């Protein structure tokens, strides 16, 4: 516990550290979201292989939309650092 406090003091640039933590959290959100999409898409293709290509294109669209949201957070964190 004290080690963490010492680390916190040593970093001292709370703005940049906040940006780094924010970027990491954004990636967690994107990973969970896109993983969900991919997983459900796999199940759907396993249930009905003929619909495979339709499911694949919808999965990619949904993944791009979720990624767009994650990139919002990345851009804000970059703006803090720069």
């Amino acid at each position: 516990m004290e080690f963490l406090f010492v680390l916190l003091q040593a970093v001292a640039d709370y703005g940049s550290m906040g940006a780094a933590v924010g970027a990491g959290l954004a990636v967690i959100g994107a990973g969970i979201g896109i993983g969900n999409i991919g997983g459900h898409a796999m199940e759907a293709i396993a249930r009905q292989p003929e619909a495979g290509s339709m499911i694949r294109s919808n999965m990619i669209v949904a993944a791009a939309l979720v990624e767009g949201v994650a990139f919002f957070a990345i851009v804000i964190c970059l703006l803090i650092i720069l």
Partner: protein
Amino acid sequence: MTSFGKFVITATLLIFVSFATGYAQHDDTHKSTEMHETENGRKKFEPGNFIMDHIGDSYEWHIATVGEKHISIPLPVIVYSEHTGVHVFMSSHFHHGHESYEGLSIAKEGENKGRIVEAVGNETLRPYDISITKNTLSLFISIALILWIFISVAKAYSRRKGQAPKGLQSMMEPLILFIRDDVAKESLGEKKYKKFTPYLLSIFFFILLNNMLGLVPIFPGGANLTGNIAITMILALFTFIITTVNANKNYWKHIIWAPGVPWWLKVPPLPIMPLVEIMGIFIKPFVLMVRLFANMTAGHIVALGFFSLIFIFGEISVGAGYGGAVFSVAFTTFLFFLEILVAFIQAYVFTLLTALYVGMATEESH
């Protein structure tokens, strides 16, 4: 193609390309921004500046650095200052940003870093700047490329009526039919898709070509045009204008009085639903803009970061540099393939969402 048509296209291409036939610039006394002399004479590599220089805009097109010498294409600087009038000259006079010319110079730090500022009295002001920068020249090059590809494909279709497509036609036809059938007809319906298909095709191929050109590491590619938020802002603005101008009464009715929502969310003193819908009118194109910009810029930053790993390891020792280069090249190759996929996906998602918004705005009531 008629010989006059060929002449027009060649002249257009030459006009655009003539901006680039400046003279390659050699400068022996210049130190680059990413290498600085340390006390014992060795250069230190700064990845932050390296990456920012590559994804940003600049007044010259940098091709290579050989030792201390920069080889870059100088571009025209066109500036109007309220105090000293119009200045037009080539950016080689700045000598890579180290000297000033006619009272103008490139700012080194502060809020105008990397842009032209003018020293007036004690302060530095930013004049009206309509220079042909790297991104502008890249825009001209991609416009010339798009015009050449699609005019020749159109001529081929009118010349080869009823025959199977050949050559460039067969590369463009699947993409064009895909956008027309799976994007335009799906979202806009059979009756209205013809009106908006030209716009959808234009933005799809514009975004796709510029994304691809941004991946090419050497001139005429590599300028990261779609990672410039001004370009994506204009594309999103076009979508916003087309959606709003073509919206019918149902669209406005749904915004002010959304059906299926309880009445106490829609009336004053706090009409939450209409407020959210009105914010949505502006947020949807804004998200389009940020999605494309962030995807492209982030991809380039990661690719450049992988490249910088080689030099960062090289700082530690020469052997570590060579060893790290193997992994770095492998990662970067994988990332380039991913970026090609992302280029297609981002162009497709922008076009699909535009089609969806226009479709929702022009929907008949049901």
